[in-house]
């Protein structure tokens, strides 16, 4: 079981590296879909274990929610938004891809040193999973600050959320169900609102380049 979880968490980390290396906005969305699918897989594994141990189906509900929302609905929504607002492919990053990937590696190493420094993680088989997931969170934030377009920032936010959800899942086998459901409601409304805002920004600024939003300073 531990090996299986280790491998999945590693794949999730790899998917966030892939994200940083993506050039097109449509590929961001694809990568996010794959990453969410991996999270759903690990949730399913936890679900099987819980079901065998005490017949609980909480984790299955969450797994279904992840597939419904993060693998199917939200990526489709983002694709639709993209189709409506973007008509030409433009460069979307400040630094070039190899440098971004190298910096992302640096983040993962940094997280390794920080997390292994926490007493409770010494010699426990979840250390690697937690390191991977916290790295995903930070790489998500890093992704957000290195992209100019609004859609890139939304995907970055979703990846941060995936990482945090992953941390909760791998380290504590999920939060209490009611909290998890609350998080999903928040996430869904959040993405819907951000999607709507992208339309409005596109209307007013004729672009979704967020570096054009610079009137309010100080």
């Amino acid at each position, binding site marked *: 079981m531990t090996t299986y979880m280790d491998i999945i968490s590693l794949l999730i980390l790899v998917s966030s590296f892939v994200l940083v290396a993506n050039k097109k906005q449509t590929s961001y969305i694809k990568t996010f879909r794959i990453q969410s699918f991996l999270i759903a897989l690990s949730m399913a594994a936890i679900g099987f274990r819980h079901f065998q141990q005490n017949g609980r189906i909480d984790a299955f509900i969450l797994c279904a929610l992840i597939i419904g929302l993060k693998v199917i609905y939200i990526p489709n929504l983002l694709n639709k938004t993209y189709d409506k607002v973007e008509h030409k492919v433009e460069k979307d990053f400040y630094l070039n891809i190899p440098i971004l990937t190298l910096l992302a590696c640096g983040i993962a190493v940094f997280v390794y040193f920080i997390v292994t420094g926490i007493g*409770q993680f010494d010699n426990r088989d979840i250390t690697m999973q937690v390191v991977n997931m916290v790295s995903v969170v930070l790489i998500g934030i890093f992704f957000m600050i290195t992209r100019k377009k609004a859609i890139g920032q939304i995907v970055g936010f979703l990846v941060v959320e995936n990482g945090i959800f992953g941390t909760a899942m791998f380290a504590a086998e999920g939060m209490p169900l009611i909290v998890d459901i609350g998080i999903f409601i928040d996430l869904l409304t959040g993405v819907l*609102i951000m999607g709507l*805002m992208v339309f409005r920004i596109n209307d007013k600024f004729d672009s979704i380049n967020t570096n054009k939003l610079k009137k309010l300073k100080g």
Partner: protein
Amino acid sequence: MKFIYLAVPVVIVILLLFIKKRKFIYELGISASLLEMLITLSITADAVSGGQASFKMSLGIFYLDSFSIIVLDIITILGFLIHIFSVGYMERDCKSGKIDEKQVRLFFILLNAFIFTMILSVSVKNMGIMWVAIEATTLASVFLVGFYNKRESLEAAWKYIIICSVGIAMAFLGIVFLHLSSTGVLTHEHQFLNFTDLTVNAANLDSSMLKFAFMFILVGFGTKVGFAPLHTWLPAAHSQAPSPVSAMLSGVLLNSAMYGIIRTFTIVNINLGNSVFAGRLMIFFGIFSIAIAAIVILTQREYKSLLAYSSIEHMGIIALAVGIFTPASVFAGLMHIINHSFTKSMLFLSTGSILQKYHTAKISRIKGILKTMPVSGTVFILGLLAIAGTPPFGIFACEWNVLLSIFNEHHFVTGSIAAVLFAVIFAGIVHCLFSMFYGETPETIEPGEPNKSGAVVLIVLFVIVLAAGLYMPDFLFNLLSNASDVIMGEI
């Protein structure tokens, strides 16, 4: 049963979806917020009738104690007053063609949703649900910030949702670690993440994990509180939102986020046995926020942004007071929460009237407010004196007490820096804003209050602010000392 106040805004939001007439929308909004206020005040009456005894009320995941009641009362009292002010404000915007009827309805729906998320965040004991509610406050208020749909307001709203969502996500990572720190200590599922159970069992939690959790929660909720350097969304959102919303954001929302930090702060301090680790972090963020605010206030050109920076300053003062962590300083911090909320809401509401009269946000283009608008102008100038820390207003007493408790703890450097910064901010506010009151009113502007019912609200708020500075009734004193006991770790 008393928790019924949570249902009121939900019912209103649903009803408002079906009501089209403006007049009904206004009446419904005001009466519902009045009802909410009365229910929470009756709970407060229960809480203070026990005299010295501490107060607790619990039902499932819902929980209230003296500390949450203080924040809850601020939300509902200001919710009611801001509702009344909004009616006049929206009516005028609607008549001048700035917004249409549909937007008025949207405004009240969102305002009530916003109030609901805030009262929910202070009425639960589960940190996870508190997080969900605080994240929901952002979602409910984003369209209120971008309400006018101009370029600047969209920019402010985008900044607000992106920065706050990511910030709050960090807080969730902290809550995950908080949960991990209780592995093996809290065994029943219904105890998980409850700050009551965490406080009772605080001594057995894993310290290194808890420290990690606190750092994330401080930075995460701190983004929402507006600690420098995470504050960049705050001036943009406060200056672009309609004034009643700015009043709500500054007077109420920041407190709810601060509430989340303080709850965790208590747990960490009990676990570590002292406040050195967490207290120093709070003091650092506090002083840094005050310093950044002081520098920016000196050079500000727009009055609403200036007030927003002043909110950052006051949140810094509260963090500083709580971070010192003596009964006196925590007491002063709580008093500051109350005084700041009412004073700052009053100021933002009066800027609403000024903005509707002069149609500009620039300080340099406004002259002669006192002649043009006797009520709003007078309240604004006195409110500025209050917020800058002039006696006899409450904020002066709070700042004085905070400084005293800092020096009593022999933090001489911190205390001196804070005192100098308070002086700089006082000078900055006087220097920047007082030119607005003198000079000749431009001829194009007719004298008179734009919002009559709003002027009454301003007077009521001013009476509250003045009374809070001059006199503290026994029941308030008991409530505050019980709340400071709660923060000091007594459950």
